[in-house]
């Protein structure tokens, strides 16, 4: 199922014959300054409605997480760093900031389970909801191993990042990457981004940033690699990301097989019940 070809070229696997290279995001969190310009630019360009104005008590993050009306979310993590010399000086503080977004998975759970075909694979290899088709069944919501897509209750339909499909069709950069002042959000052909990210991790390791790692860059992972992947400085769950996400539909063949067994039991039980005595 997870053939190498499909892993590298989900657009072709979905039937696009002649298509542009797979496009994606590299979110390099080592460059993020937590300005939230990406959140704002995304809301403005995509006309995403306001979804709550509350103080969450979680550092500078009052957005909370991705949702139907939040397609970029900047996480703020404050970590204590022990003083280098145990004798002198107070412990230090380290900021981790990261702009989360839909991963545009190679094997996308939301797309696989969508019963209307509203979710589809674009020619850029991204995953987009067709809003004129979605009937709000909500199945994509629990099917996403990252908890990205959600139903907008006042609207009834499912919404998420489109990787600015409209801008891509006009050779423009998605709004969040366009506005990012530090190039923490980088947009481009996925192959190039993966190479650049590998170099960057090496560079950070040389500088002594031992925690630097890529997340979602491996085509061999549980979702076949993400179209939007990350350079993180700590474990994924620190940022609210699942450490080992797996697309639920990976097991669907085995599930249907087990179900055939249960269905047989159902039929056999009914037959036996009637095969018995007259009363």
């Amino acid at each position: 199922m997870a053939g190498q070809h499909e892993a590298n070229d989900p657009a072709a696997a979905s039937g696009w014959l002649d298509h542009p290279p797979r496009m994606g995001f590299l979110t390099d969190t080592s460059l993020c300054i937590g300005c939230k310009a990406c959140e704002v630019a995304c809301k403005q360009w995509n006309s995403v409605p306001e979804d709550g104005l509350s103080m969450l008590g979680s550092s500078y993050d009052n957005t909370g997480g991705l949702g139907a009306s939040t397609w970029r979310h900047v996480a703020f993590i404050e970590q204590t760093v022990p003083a280098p010399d145990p004798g002198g000086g107070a412990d230090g503080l380290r900021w981790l900031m990261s702009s989360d977004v839909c991963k545009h998975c190679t094997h996308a759970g939301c797309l696989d389970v969508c019963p209307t075909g509203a979710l589809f694979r674009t020619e850029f290899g991204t995953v987009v909801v067709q809003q004129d088709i979605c009937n709000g069944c909500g199945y994509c919501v629990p099917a996403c191993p990252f908890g990205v897509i959600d139903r907008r209750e006042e609207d009834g339909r499912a919404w998420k990042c489109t990787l600015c499909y409209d801008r891509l069709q006009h050779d423009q950069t998605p709004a969040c990457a366009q506005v990012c002042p530090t190039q923490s959000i980088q947009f481009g052909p996925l192959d190039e981004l993966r190479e650049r990210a590998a170099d960057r991790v090496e560079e950070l390791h040389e500088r002594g940033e031992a925690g630097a790692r890529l997340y979602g860059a491996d085509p061999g992972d549980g979702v076949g690699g993400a179209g939007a992947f990350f350079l993180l400085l700590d474990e994924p769950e620190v940022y609210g990301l699942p450490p080992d996400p797996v697309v639920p539909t990976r097991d669907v063949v085995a599930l249907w097989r087990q179900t055939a067994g249960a269905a047989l039991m159902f039929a056999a039980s009914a037959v036996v019940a009637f095969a018995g005595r007259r009363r």
Partner: protein
Amino acid sequence: MTEPAQHRPPERQRRRRRSDPNAVVPDAEFTSYYGRPIVKASPWKADIPAYFFLGGLAAGSSAFAAGAAVTGRPALRRLSRLSALGAISASAFALIHDLGRPERFYMMLRVAKPTSPMSMGTWLVTAYAPCAGLAAAGEFASVLPLPDPMKRLLASLANPAGWAAAALAPALATYTGVLLADTATPTWKEAGGTITAAFAAGALASGAGMGLFAPLEESGPARRLAIASTAGEVGAVFRMEKAAGLAGETFTDGRAGKFGRAAEVLLVSGGILAAVTRRTRIGSAIAGTALMAGACCERFAIFEAGQASARDPKYTVVPQRERMNQRERLTDAERPAQ
């Protein structure tokens, strides 16, 4: 203050720990982002577990109607066919009612996707419902305000339609288990195929429960199946809770736990009552009601357990970390061979 993301166990867990001083299993340690959920709980409301129950009742009833037709039990057959039609209609209503855009229900019919159990289920219901409808209509053809040839046609279609409905019933009873297992919701995902077994047994228990309303001389198969499917359901639920691993505790906590305990009491008492009420129709009807209520509560328990597991990042992070550690151990074990 600057210590982020360390998980605080919810109040409920701490309380239980205090009440059990001998507990040796510590709370799983894990990191999260301010304790916020990672995966999202489904936006589904009570419509969805109700739809599971009603679909199961329809499937169980169609199986009973077919058995009754073969073995010459007209009252059981009539009751079951009517129950199948009523249940599948209510089930379809619940499914459509839960949509964010109910008026767009027909969008489900523009694709057929084996990776989407909901798509498969929609087609299954679309094929099944007319069969259940024709089978039920045939039972009452003689009293319908129709010309005689139409009445004869309906009556002659009842049995073939009934067979078709019964042939689809096993799939109808079980596909909803795949629908839940095919998600990233920890409890449903980990329980996997064991949910379908619980759903199959529950569907039989519901169908048997309805069958117990039939006259005593015809309800023998319902009685036998009531007892067997109760045992099957209790066993399947036990297996399901085991299979869910760490997330299995969501079956016993909170709302899911309440529904689960109610289901157990109702199913077991329904099964026992079915065994001892061979001579009273009222007693049988009470047993049947208990069985249907139990099967319904079990659906709500499974639904609520999954919802709770999605809301707590523990059930997403800990099993995934364990899986990663296991993979690492395997790789380490291979290394010395070099």
